[in-house]
Every structure is written in C-alpha cells, then in structure tokens.
C-alpha cells in the first residue's frame, strides 16, 4: 500500500480522522512556512526575554507593550527623518544593514531603555504599584505615538525603509529533512536572526554567570541577597533597563523589519502575549522562546486558514467558523495558558514586591 492511500484511509476514519487531518495539515504547513513562524516569534521572544529579565530580578513589567510601541514609532520616525539625508541607495550595506537603519535601531533601543528606566524609577525608587506604572506606560505610549503619528502623517512622509531578509543558499535549504529548519533560522532579517543568539546568550548568562545568580537571588529573596552585599536596587535598575534593550529590538522589528511603516497600536497585544509566553516558558529565555514559537505557529495558522484552508472534513469545520474568530485564536490561547491548563509555573518569590532597605541600626 503506498503512502497516499494510507493517508486517505486514515483521513477517512469518522471523527478520529479529523485528528489525522489536523496532524497532516500541520506537517504540511510548518516546514513550508517555517521562516514566517520564526519571524512572527521574534518580537514575542524578545519581549518575553524582557519580561524574564525584569521578573527574575523581582520587577513585574506590564508596560512591555507600550515600550515596544514607542520603540516601533521611534524607529520609523527616525527612518523618515534620516533616510533622505543619506540618499538612495543607502550606503554601507552589509546583510541588509544600512547606516540609516542602524541609526533607527539604536534610537529605538535608546527610547525603550528610557521608558524602562521610567518604569524602574516608579516601581523601584518610588515603590508605586508596578502594575499601575506599566499600565500608564502603555496608555501613554499609545497616546503619544498616536498623536505624533497623526501630526507626521499630515506631511505624507516617505517610507522609513526596512531591513532586507538574508537569503540562505538554496543548496542548504533544499537539504532533505533539515533544510526547512535552516531556512527557518537563516531566512531572516538581522533582528530576527540576532534574536536567536541573544536568547541563547541570555539563557547561559542567567544560569551560568555571577550576574545571573545574583539576578535570581534578588528575585527570590532580596533581603538575603542584600546581606551578602548585593546592591538590590542597582541590580533591579540594570536588569529592567537591559530588558528595555530587548523590548526596543522587538518594537523596531515591527516597524523596520516586518514592515516599513507605523500604524497606531501596531503591537496588537504582542507585549501581553509575550508575558504569557514567559510564564509558559517558566521564566527561562529558551522556554519563553519555545512558547513564542508556539504562539507564532498559531498566528500563522490563523492567517493560513483564511488563504489556504485544509481539505476534507477539517477544512469544512474550519471554514464554518467566522474568519474573525481565527484572529482571536492567539488571544484565547494566551488565556488558556494563563489559566494553568498547560501546567502551573511558579514565579520568582519576590516578583512584584518593591524592596525597601532596612534602616541602618
């Protein structure tokens, strides 16, 4: 019996056949869309990494969404301003990196770090409620970027340009079995490609370095950490601002790598989905990256179902659900994961608690 007739036989089984059809759909869809999935996972993974760094040292950062939005806007607006100065084509191109785009990226990261500093100041120094601080950052980022976007749109600006994706040589991507994996990680723009390195580096850093040990100590028991001479306040500041670097990269991805434009509220909840990815990944960079990939897969599937639905009963079932509800799928998945369906994860013990030094005796 050849393979296709085996598939036909499996797909034809009533009810259970749908499961086989779903598996078949995934097996068919994942390899051919692997670069897209990785691409969609990039901002989620970077934002989740920001969350990991903050929460491992005991600061809850709900404002990642707003930080990313502000970074996305900055990258775009700097591009609009800087691009004409360099003329076209932009000079100094290496792997899709041009001088104006690097300037955009640096400015986006700077703005994100600045906003993270604000969050750190409010939640660490002022010891205000961290959730409120994050929410205000989100509202403020939405308002300020929306306002400036309206103003700048009036001048109908030229595009900001965007990073080009690297194309791996075809002899690599055509390799059987592993070719699609190579394509997945190499057929990417500079931000997406470097995010893989960043995440692996952060994992090693967090669990194999002195800084990582101290970070985890401060997140679990700041008082004990302080007694052995760790400066809790300074470490928290540093980690939150370092997290801002990654949120900034994730934001810049939105406006100068995935697209070359800015829309009001273009983060569409990615900063919050990233928090769910962080929780699902048990507050580890690699785990968060894995969860980000899963979310990206769902994002991708919700797009594909509208363009190329699977055949058979599965397709009929999927087609009968309104298209808008497929768009809601990643959000529903986030709630399901938060509700602990995928297993409970335990946050760092001092997560979200402001730290107050004991008065000197």
């Amino acid at each position, binding site marked *: 019996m050849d393979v296709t007739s085996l598939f036909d036989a499996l797909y034809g089984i009533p009810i259970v056949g749908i499961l086989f059809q779903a598996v078949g759909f995934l097996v068919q869809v994942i390899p051919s869309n692997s670069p897209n999935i990785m691409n969609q996972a990039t901002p989620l993974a970077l934002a989740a990494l920001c969350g990991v760094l903050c929460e491992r040292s005991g600061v809850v950062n709900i404002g990642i969404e707003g930080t990313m939005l502000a970074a996305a806007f900055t990258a775009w607006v700097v591009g609009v301003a800087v691009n004409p100065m360099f003329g076209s084509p932009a000079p100094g191109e290496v792997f899709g990196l041009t001088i104006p785009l690097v300037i955009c990226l640096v400015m986006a990261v700077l703005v994100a770090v600045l906003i993270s500093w604000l969050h750190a100041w409010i939640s660490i120094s*002022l010891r*205000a409620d961290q959730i409120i601080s994050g929410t205000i950052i989100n509202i403020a980022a*939405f308002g300020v970027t929306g306002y400036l976007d309206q103003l700048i749109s009036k001048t109908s600006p030229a595009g900001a340009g965007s990073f080009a994706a690297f194309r791996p040589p075809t002899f690599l991507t055509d390799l059987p079995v592993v070719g699609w994996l190579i394509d997945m990680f190499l057929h990417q723009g500079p931000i997406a490609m470097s995010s893989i390195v960043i995440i692996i580096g952060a994992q090693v850093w967090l669990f194999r370095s002195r800084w990582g040990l101290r970070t985890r100590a401060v997140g679990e028991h700041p008082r004990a950490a302080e007694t052995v001479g760790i400066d809790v306040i300074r470490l928290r500041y540093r980690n939150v601002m370092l997290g801002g670097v990654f949120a900034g990269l994730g934001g810049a991805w939105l406006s100068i790598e995935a697209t070359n434009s800015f829309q009001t509220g273009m983060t569409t909840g990615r900063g919050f989905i990233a928090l769910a990815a962080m929780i699902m990944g048990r507050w580890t960079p690699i785990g968060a990256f894995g969860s980000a990939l899963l979310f990206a897969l769902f994002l991708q599937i919700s797009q594909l179902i509208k363009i190329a639905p699977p055949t058979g009963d599965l397709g009929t079932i999927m087609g009968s659900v*309104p298209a808008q509800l497929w768009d809601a799928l990643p959000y529903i998945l986030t709630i399901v994961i*938060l509700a602990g369906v995928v297993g409970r994860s335990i946050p760092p013990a001092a997560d979200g608690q402001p730290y107050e030094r004991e008065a000197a005796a």
Partner: protein
Amino acid sequence: MSGSPSADREPGTRGLLSRIWSVLALPVTVTVLAVLLGAAIILVSELLVPGKTFDWFLPLTAYGALVEGAVGGPDAIVSTLVNTTPLVFGGLAVGFGFKAGLFNIGAQGQFLVGALGAVIVGVWLADAPAVVAIPASALAGFIAGGLWGFVPGFLKAVSGAHEVVSTIMMNYIAVQLLAALVSGPLKVPRSPSPITYDVGNAAFPILLGRNGHLGILLAFLAALFVWWLLFRTTWGFEVRAVGANPDASRYAGMRPRLITIATMTFSGALAGLAGTSVLLGVTHSMTSSFGTTVGFDSIAVALLARSHPLVTIPAALLFGAMRAGAGLMQIRAQIPVELVDVLQAVIPLFLVASPVLRRVLGAAAPAGIGGVPASRGLATKVAA
C-alpha cells in the same frame, strides 16, 4: 471641576479651606501640570510640521477652542455630558475593581460586549413598547458585560491567572467577536458595509437639549448606587476588606475567591453599561468599527478619582469635557484630537509620581490620600 487652588495653605490654619485644599491639591496640581505639558507638546509639535509659521500662542488658541467646545453654550455642555456618561460607568467599573485589589483593564472589551448585548436585544425588541424595550436592552448590556468580566474573575479565583493579562486578551477577543457578529448574523442584508439594524424603540429618549439622553441620568444614579453598595452594605465592606488585606479577610470568615469573581463580574457589568449607554443613547446601531477609547480613559478616570464612586463624576466630567472639546480644537488649531489621549496618559503618570509632588507641595496633601488606590498585594500575585 478643577478650580484654581485658591485655598489658604498656611500650615497653622485648620479651617474648611485648608481641608478642601488637602483633598484637591493633588488632582488639581496634576491637572494643571498636564495642561502645561500639553502646551509644551503643542509647541514642540509645531516644529515637527514644516511649512508653518511658529505661533507662540497656539496652545492658547487650542485650549480656548477646547474649553469653548466643552462648555461654550448649551449644546457644548450637553455634548460634554454625553461624552461623560460612558466614562462615569467605566470609571466606576475600574474603580470598583481597584477597591477589591483587582485591576480590570478589560473595561474596553466589556464595553464592546455590553454594547453588543444591547444591540442584539435592542434590534430584537425594536418594535416593542419603549417601557419594555429599553430596560430589556440595557439589562442585556449589563449582563453581557458582566459575563465578559466573569471569565477573568473566575480564572483568577480558580487558577490564579492574573486579571491584567487575561482581561487584555478578552479585549482583543471582544473586538474579533464584534467584527464576526456585525459582519455575520447581525448584518443588515445587502447593505454595502457591515452595520446592524437600528434599535428603534429601545433607544434612550432625549431628555436634554439636542442629544442629552437618558443614560446621563442613569450614570449619575449608578455612581450613587455604587457608593451605597461600597460603603453601606455588607458586600461592599467585604469587597473593601478583601482589597485591603485578602488574608485578614479570610481569617474573618470572608471568601476572597468568591468576592473576586463577584467583583470582576459586577465591574464588567458596569463597563457593559458604558457600552450600552453609547449604543442606546448615541449610535443606535453598530458598525464593525464600533469602539472608542472609553475603556482606557476609564482607567485614568478611576485613578484620578482614587476609586471613589462620587469623585468619579467630576473626574469623568473633566475627561468628558476634553473629549467634547477636542473636535473644535482640531478645527481651530489643527491639533489632532489625539492630544487628549496624551493628556489623559500624563495625568495618571503625574499621580503615580505623587510622592515627588507631595514633597514639592509640602505638607498640604496628607500621606493617606495621595497614593494610587490599588493594593500593593495585587502585584505580588502576578501570573502563575
């Protein structure tokens, strides 16, 4: 609402004026600071748009238009009241959650689903007598919003899923649900763009001026009702006790989990009424792009009012006036209406920085009042 701080600040006088000032110092200072920052933003944004002569007085022109659009004449005042109505409901919703230590960022989603519930029943009862149609549609909006608040409340109580993330996810789901229904089963057949039928007799009657609908009255009554609920009933006491200290309230025989579910549901229902008031009072039908910034404005209202139900009214009036006047500001001064979003974000930002402000203001604002309402315990229970 935000009069000039004329009260006597001398430390020795303990009269009525200094007491009023001690309550108003922070909100008034914060509002004044926000207005000044807004003026700075207007000046800076002039530099961003090339080809126009720089006008030092543009902030005055803009604010003048804003004030005129908000309170200049009966129509403007009614328009302010209409814009205030959903903010009162929304501010009450968010503030009620704060009281129990819950951060309901989902007012936006509950607003949309509440409006959805109201339009479904409203269209269904469009030809029924108004005495039946109006209460039934409003109740549907109330219940629908409550349902949308119940889900995160239930998940929080049962599995500890933090309400901040789950309510935000519910917001996005609400947007998609609304789009699916309005362009699907609720759509008027053969209409070029997705729109529902008119709610007909279920629409709120106009009581005041050109468009001052019944919802304005309901919003003010709701504020009184929530005040009564919080401060004059056992349930309200339990809500506040759980918000202040969940552990202590459990030892006192209360059930914090049940209170969490009930609070989120009621908070969602109030936000649902905000959507209902817009739908039955203003739009009367729904397009797939139905939605405003009410949900997020409500957070600013609740923070400014420090979750007090009665103070919610002046706080909502402030933001409602800004919304009402923004249109005229855009026409007169070419300042995008989004400036109001900026002001609304800046006000809570200054409020959070209130320890710094308090230092600047001296002893005028007592320590107990200046803080932001949500309990600190909230943040410790994040996620999992």
